[in-house]
């Protein structure tokens, strides 16, 4: 093996290249991209448009990084892949041979053949060229329509809003992102988006995009009502799909994406697929066949890089987690969350009266073991939540120590008490008292009291034992968290 070639300089392809370099000092590594000269954080595209960062700021590595790690960057479009001859044909006529090939082809945005989808001023948003196009398309306009209620849709609405463009936002569903968010959280986002002055219309679809004589968008006609919303820009954000057209004439097996095993190997030996374009033959438990997420892309890159270097480790993503930010409301999720009521799963939900903070904890109804955390406008520690979920910690234990999970900045109001109160109202016979607030920032008095206690009764290890006034259920004394005490 002399030459590893990666197509695509997104997070998964770049992670594959970096992993190979970490494990092998000698192999030649080339990364080919048609999109940009350097790796950048795709998730930060919105901040360039909003004027928070320049494009250079979104590049996680400085320019010296690539020559020093001997990762060759090639700007070019791969037109054909010859898997027999292990050769890539680039648009400019160049050919590049490879011994191992990693496909990090990414996604394209969905178009469903809507009338008017090809008009000027109508586009989706995935790539840097898309962003440049949006920059051109939205200069000096005053009204835009965004279609589709996912993460990119809300980002696009926020981007346009930051440029003082009045935005009508059409979402087919009744609550926001019902596949990921329970109704309460979904409605919280709906209210928040409207509070920002976005003309958000839930349960609304469009029928056609209308153009003027010059072929430029002039309005969107809504289904049912027939109302025409005048606009000079339409953002189409109704999902993405793997960007695999380039593989049509190759023997590489594809479904919706490139079919891969647990080492990210495709059907052709020596060829791997990572990131948004990969589709698992056997999805890991609790995972979708295609995972267009930042951190799974990183994991894919590491898995492929390790297999290439002969130190394989299968893709085992573990518990689900994710995060996002909807205008000003941050969102974190750890573990599976029931988006609709499910038999056998109970859910504890607390929401602040200002509608900007919410904490949800799902647990099994029978033994009250914790299943997952859904946080809105509140930060929780991933490692603490994961340990509780993985060890099957029971709710009384979790709630007593809930403060350990809190990751909000110092001086922020902590709401764990209110969460515990909700549980106590639901289950008066299991009433719990919150013991710990933060895990690192300790109450000095509690700390001194505990030291005294330990001095008196050395056999006790304070933290892992349940408080005496708690209705102890079996197993609740499991050491549930990575206490730093």
């Amino acid at each position, binding site marked *: 093996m002399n030459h590893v070639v990666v197509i695509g300089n997104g*997070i998964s392809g770049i992670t594959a290249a*970096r992993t190979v*370099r*970490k*494990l092998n*000092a000698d192999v030649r590594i080339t990364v080919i991209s048609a999109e940009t000269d350097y790796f950048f*954080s795709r*998730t*930060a595209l919105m*901040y360039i448009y*909003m*004027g*928070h*960062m*320049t*494009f250079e*700021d979104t*590049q*996680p*590595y*400085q320019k*010296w*990084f690539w020559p*020093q*790690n001997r990762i060759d960057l090639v*700007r070019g479009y791969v037109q054909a892949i010859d898997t027999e001859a292990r050769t890539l044909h680039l648009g400019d006529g160049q050919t590049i041979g490879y011994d191992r090939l990693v496909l990090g082809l990414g996604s394209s945005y969905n178009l469903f053949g809507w009338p008017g989808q090809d008009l000027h001023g109508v586009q989706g948003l995935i790539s840097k*060229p898309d962003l*440049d196009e949006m*920059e*051109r398309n939205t*200069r000096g306009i005053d009204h835009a329509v965004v279609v589709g209620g996912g993460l990119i849709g809300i980002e696009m609405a926020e981007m346009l809003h930051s440029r003082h463009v009045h935005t009508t936002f059409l979402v087919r569903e009744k609550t926001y992102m019902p596949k990921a968010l329970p109704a309460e959280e979904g409605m919280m986002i709906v209210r928040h988006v409207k509070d*920002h002055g976005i003309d958000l219309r839930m349960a609304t679809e469009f029928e056609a995009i209308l153009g003027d004589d010059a072929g430029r968008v002039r309005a969107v006609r809504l289904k049912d009502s027939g109302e025409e919303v005048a606009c000079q820009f339409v953002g189409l954000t109704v999902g993405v799909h793997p960007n695999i057209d380039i593989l049509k004439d190759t023997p590489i097996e594809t479904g919706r994406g490139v079919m891969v095993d647990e080492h990210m190997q495709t059907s052709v030996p020596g060829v791997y697929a990572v990131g948004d374009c990969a589709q698992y033959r056997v999805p890991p438990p609790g995972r979708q066949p295609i995972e267009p997420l*930042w*951190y799974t892309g*990183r*994991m894919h890159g*590491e898995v492929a890089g*390790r297999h290439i270097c002969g*130190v394989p480790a299968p893709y085992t993503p*573990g518990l689900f*987690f994710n*995060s*996002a*930010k909807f205008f*000003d409301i*941050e969102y*974190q999720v750890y573990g599976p969350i029931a988006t609709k009521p499910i038999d056998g799963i109970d859910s504890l939900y607390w929401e602040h009266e200002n509608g900007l903070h919410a904490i949800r904890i799902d647990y099994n109804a029978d033994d009250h073991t914790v299943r997952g955390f859904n946080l809105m406008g509140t*930060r929780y*520690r*991933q*490692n603490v939540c*994961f*340990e509780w979920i993985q060890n099957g910690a029971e709710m009384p234990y979790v709630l007593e120590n809930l403060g350990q999970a809190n*990751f909000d*900045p110092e*001086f*922020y109001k902590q709401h764990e008490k209110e969460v515990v109160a909700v549980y106590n109202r639901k289950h008066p016979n299991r009433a719990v008292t919150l013991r710990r607030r933060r895990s*690192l920032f300790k109450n000095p008095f509690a700390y001194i009291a505990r030291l005294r206690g330990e001095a008196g009764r050395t056999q006790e290890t304070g933290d892992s034992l349940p408080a005496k006034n708690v209705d102890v259920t079996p197993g609740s004394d499991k050491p549930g968290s*990575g206490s*730093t005490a």
Partner: protein
Amino acid sequence: MTHDASFSLAAPTTELDTRQRIGLAVFGLGLLSLLVAWAMDGGSPVLASSLGFGLTIGGGLIYFWAKYLGKPAGIRNDGLTFSPTTSKGWIGWILGVVFTGFYVLLYWIPGTLEGLIRITDPLSYTLRGKAADQWFLYGTFYTIAVLTMGVRMIFKYRHSKYQIIRTLSVMFFQLGFGFTIPGLLVMFNQPEFYFSYFWPLKYDYLFPGTVNYLTQSGGVGVFMIFWGAVMTFIATPVLTYFFGKRWYCSWVCGCGGLAETLGDPYRQLSDKSMKAWKIERWMIHSVLLWVTVLTAALWINSAMDGALLGKASRTYSKVYGFVIGAAFSGVIGVGFYPIMGSRVWCRFGCPMAAILGLQQRFFSRFRISTNGGQCISCGNCSKYCEMGIDVRWYAQRGQNIVRASCVGCGVCSAVCPRGVLNLENGPRGDQRFNSPGPVFISTDSVRVLTEEPGAQSTDLAVSK
């Protein structure tokens, strides 16, 4: 395959609403009255100062009120990279020249500021019982800047209790310890002393000349020496052990206070390159070495009755005062805000920051914790780090950030869109450097054959 098509387009305009325009107009009128009074050698000082200061402060507050309070609370950095004020555009350069020019006049040609100095006479008589001098003028401008821009900071970050409390703290210390108390001391014929500045930032507080002078000025003077020595040698290491250098740099210090208020619009201009970091380490530790050697030499000289340095001892301290005290901390430190960011002095020059940094790096419980695998490498943390730390470098690897230069302003944590970063004081040990639970299969667990050069030179983030 288009190369950055956006460059070919004119930058989007930053729109101002009516209230913002009114605020700017009022501010402009205030500025105008200050200039007129300057030209008229003070004119009528009471009228000039009430008009000049009243209108600039009032106009500024109207502008910030309109800009921030009209929108929901949250991170509002919209348009910063487009604005000619905050992205090294023409307004930024003009401001840089104005700030720099003011410092040059203040330090070396104070006579030209006579008209402005006279404006502050009424305030000076009230507070200190005597006429103003150039340093009183400077203190007045400085305090007004910290207070007014402090209110802006609070408006802007009003969703963050950490930012509110921290900003109130620097405003309090500037108004009380940096302005009012020194003024009252003058009023009561005591040495003008700043209880919130210590050696080696206020380098002459431990010089033999100052110590002798304070000793001779009676009980209060002796207390001042005692206070300065205790703060430098006992309080500083203890507080830094528990809270990191932020207890001083972003909560108490006047230089830090100005950077965190007047400098906030420019924090993103700090240089994040590896090269800048190298220069920073060389420069700041050289200044620390210089002031330490100078202080020691002055004391040895003093003990030897001047046999070591002779008459040159004054020259040595004057050279330091000129190069570091005036040129670096003033002219470059503040004058270059709109060009090099708000912490040029704190990052490259301040010997106090150097000491606190060494303590923070090696003997502190402070760190910025990274939350598992949520980082998306967006770069907001690095962009808005006024100290030029590439916070993302650590965050995306799941590593905690323990860097000598971090002043703990907390803005990286505030701008993070995924809840990844948090300032914490906690037990030391391996946990201080590494996130307890890396999510990715490699990053830490893979045996590294060829370490990336970045990881080597970020010697502060060595894994166990």
